């Protein structure tokens, strides 16, 4: 018998029985229903203490008493006032919404659940109603008539449920005529909850780990060495090549930072192995860092301050090691932080140099201040200059589609680079429907700290739009692989695909690159980086490098 933590527990026909009508009671009078499978467990006191957060205590979401501070109401209202004065975005987004509803059916959680409070507009109204009551002239005078409502413990509970039912994917903000960004509202909402010590453990434990040990998964420095050595052994088994593992190497040219999910989770590990192979083949003078061992940043899902605290280690380590610039791996939210926050929060990185590819000489002017570039920018440039020996037919057993991860798509716009790389290393590439890719891409359903098993019902519901689009290309083009350049995707989309489009496997892009590449000194390769036998490789002789010709 399966439990609400497991996908089997949910029957497809039940999940697809999505209510099309809002409840009979008005949303202000409809309390939250905390049912198992749809909420995340609270942050544990010990984790709050590691990073000095307020009101550490152990409590349960289903408790009636959430053990808030006595003056919790004052804390929230002061917290709101403070943020309204600090973030123009917050104030404008509170003031300008006309409730046109264009955002409503753009949210994967609303599409998958039918819960009206998952309409981005209503998610924001949960906060906006308090704003109107306590911060606007009309609301102060007319109260409920002006759309205001009293701040109560039930409101706090509702915030907790729905601000941790938003993956900060920003899809709604693409469609909003005023650019209202629910990610911004959710981020502020979570900061306010944080003032009362209300966090989810799936975010807070990684935060505490990352602060102390440099990565979300609490991999200690010696553990990282073991992990990478283990991968090097697998690389040798697959290719006959022994790669170096430069760690905390002073004076290296490049610091490489990737999400820690790549160190432990299948299939992220194969992408990590691919990085190592690629850098080895290029003879790149680079280093891993045990201290800056995570580019991912669950601080983004906690508070602006926590984001800054966790992000700091990248520049700090780059300076200590004396590298010239920073290269970042395949990650989603990490790239939101790098592209939109890092330089502002922890820069200026005036001790680094503008990234310049040592192989092609390309200078990455687009990163001349932050000094950090995306691996796909780096690899696309290599392929364009014919610097990799690639035989895309080595991936002929793969029929792949590409899932744009939310943050790279909507907080950066790295859309064509990954496509160029994928098309260069695989002959069978198929796009999902246009309303589900690029800037309109759908979230995996588990981003922003929601990808935990106790939240399985919402993950499957939120994953429906993506799953449905994958199923579409699976039926139409026999797609059997979904590529994604995001560690959270590589963890959560397995569940989404298994459930909504069974048979489609998930891969990183680099993994495909390495499988298509011919390496100097390799043995006859018969298995891929997953150490799976590839019949075409074992039988054919195409592995004898006819690659490299991918230009134009």
């Amino acid at each position: 018998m399966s439990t609400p933590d497991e996908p089997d527990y949910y029957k497809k026909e039940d999940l697809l029985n999505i209510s099309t009508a809002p409840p009979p009671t008005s949303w202000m009078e409809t309390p939250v229903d905390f049912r198992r499978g749809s909420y995340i467990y609270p942050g544990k006191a010990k984790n709050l203490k590691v990073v000095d957060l307020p009101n550490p205590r152990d409590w349960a979401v289903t408790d009636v008493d959430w053990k808030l501070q006595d003056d919790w109401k004052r804390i929230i209202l002061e917290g709101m006032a403070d943020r309204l004065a600090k973030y123009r975005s917050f104030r404008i987004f509170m003031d300008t919404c006309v409730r046109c509803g264009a955002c409503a059916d753009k949210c994967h959680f609303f599409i998958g659940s039918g819960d009206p409070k998952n309409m981005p507009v209503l998610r924001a109204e949960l906060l906006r109603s308090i704003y109107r009551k306590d911060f606007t002239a009309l609301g102060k005078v007319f109260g409920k008539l002006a759309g205001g409502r009293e701040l109560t413990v039930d409101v706090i509970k509702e915030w907790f449920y729905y601000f941790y039912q938003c993956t900060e994917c920003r899809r709604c903000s693409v469609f909003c005529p005023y650019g209202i960004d629910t990610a911004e509202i959710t981020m502020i909402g979570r900061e306010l909850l944080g003032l009362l010590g209300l966090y989810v453990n799936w975010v807070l434990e990684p935060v505490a780990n990352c602060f102390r040990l440099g990565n979300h998964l609490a991999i200690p420095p010696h553990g990282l060495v073991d992990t990478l050595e283990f991968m090097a052994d697998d690389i040798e088994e697959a290719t006959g090549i022994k790669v170096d593992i430069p760690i905390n190497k002073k004076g290296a040219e490049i610091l490489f930072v990737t999400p820690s999910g790549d160190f432990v989770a299948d299939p992220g590990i194969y992408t990590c192995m691919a990085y190592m192979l690629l850098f080895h083949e290029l003879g790149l003078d680079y280093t891993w860092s045990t201290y800056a061992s995570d580019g991912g940043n669950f601080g983004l899902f906690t508070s602006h301050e926590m984001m800054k605290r966790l992000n700091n280690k990248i520049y700090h380590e780059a300076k200590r090691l004396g590298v010239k610039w920073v290269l970042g791996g395949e990650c989603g939210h990490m790239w939101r932080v790098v592209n939109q926050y890092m330089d502002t929060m922890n820069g200026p990185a005036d001790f680094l140099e503008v990234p310049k590819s040592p192989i092609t000489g390309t200078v990455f002017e687009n990163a001349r201040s932050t000094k950090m570039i995306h691996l796909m920018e780096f690899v696309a440039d290599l392929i364009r200059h014919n610097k990799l020996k690639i035989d895309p037919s080595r991936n002929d057993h793969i029929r792949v589609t590409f899932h744009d991860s939310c943050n790279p798509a909507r907080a950066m716009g790295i859309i064509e680079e990954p496509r160029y790389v994928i098309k260069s290393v695989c002959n069978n590439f198929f796009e999902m429907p246009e309303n589900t890719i690029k800037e309109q891409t759908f979230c995996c359903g588990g981003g922003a700290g929601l990808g935990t098993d106790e939240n399985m019902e919402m993950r499957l519901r939120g994953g429906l739009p993506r799953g449905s689009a994958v199923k579409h290309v699976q039926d139409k083009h026999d797609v059997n692989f979904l590529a994604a350049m995001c560690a959270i995707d590589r963890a959560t989309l397995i569940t989404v695909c298994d459930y909504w489009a069974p048979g489609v496997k998930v891969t990183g892009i680099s993994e495909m690159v390495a499988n298509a590449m011919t390496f100097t000194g390799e043995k006859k390769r018969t298995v891929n980086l997953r150490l799976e036998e590839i019949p075409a490789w074992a039988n054919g002789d195409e592995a004898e490098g006819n690659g490299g010709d991918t230009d134009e």
Partner: protein
Amino acid sequence: MNVVVSLVFVGGLFVLGLLGAVPGLGWIFGVVLPYMAILLFLGGLAYRVMSWANIPVPFRIPTTCGQQKSLPWIKHDKLENPHNALTVAGRMALEILLFRSLLRNTKTKHMDDGRVVYGTDLSLWLAALAMHWSLLFILIRHLRLMVNPVPGFVTFLEDADGFLQVGLPVFFATTVIFLAGLAYLLYRRLANPHLRYISLIGDYVPLFLLLGIGLSGFWLRHLTKTDVPAIKELFLGLTHFSPTVPDTISPIFYVHLFLFCVLLSYIPFGKLTHMAGVFLSPTRNMANNNRAVRHVNPWDYPVKLHPYDEYEDELREKMIGAGIPVEREE
């Protein structure tokens, strides 16, 4: 419920406006209230915009809707992912003049076999665009009543607007489009259960006010004989700060003017501030060039960190044991 309250409220205002024609009250409805409304509108909106503008923008957070500027051989989508002030201006122009984001609107449908599909849905974009643009033209047309002699562009617009040459006086296309657009926006708010669910009194009132203003204007032009010279005398008095109140002005005109005054006064206090807010939205009016040009947060403050030294102090033995280089051997 909210819709009924709003309708009753605006209906009450409608009746109240009729009082303008009562002898002696013309000064209140024709002079005092219009001046107050203008003051509230200008003062309130200026205050609103200033208070927004005074709030810092700590981070550069544009929503990118196209390819970034990166490698020279990859086509950069300048208007959907602007990289400098000029392209930001282009993006904002598209947003403000053509409602670019609404143009993307889709309608999500759940199919019986479980698939989710998305269809283009231009109705909201079309109705909103029609309503806003025709409102602008209607406002410009009204300059005829406030400026003497009538500026050439106003006459030109009127001629263009009345191109159908139907009716006497001629029906203006914008009047019809404006009312039809409003009617659709109201219809969709009522017909879509989710939209009805989120709609507040503050959403219905502006719609009813605009409808009231539009219908009373239509009435004045087409259903009743209106003393236009008298109205122009009133407006010229107002604009020249020497108000006079002719006594031949009809009650419906006072309704028209009163509802407009209420709308104008309300703008700075409710959702209609979107007319100014759209210019300041950080996800739209910022360039996505954060990796190239540093953005400074004016209220940045030091935070508690876990520097490398503390990290190494805690883990030194294990690092040495694993052969990882350290700063200090002990």
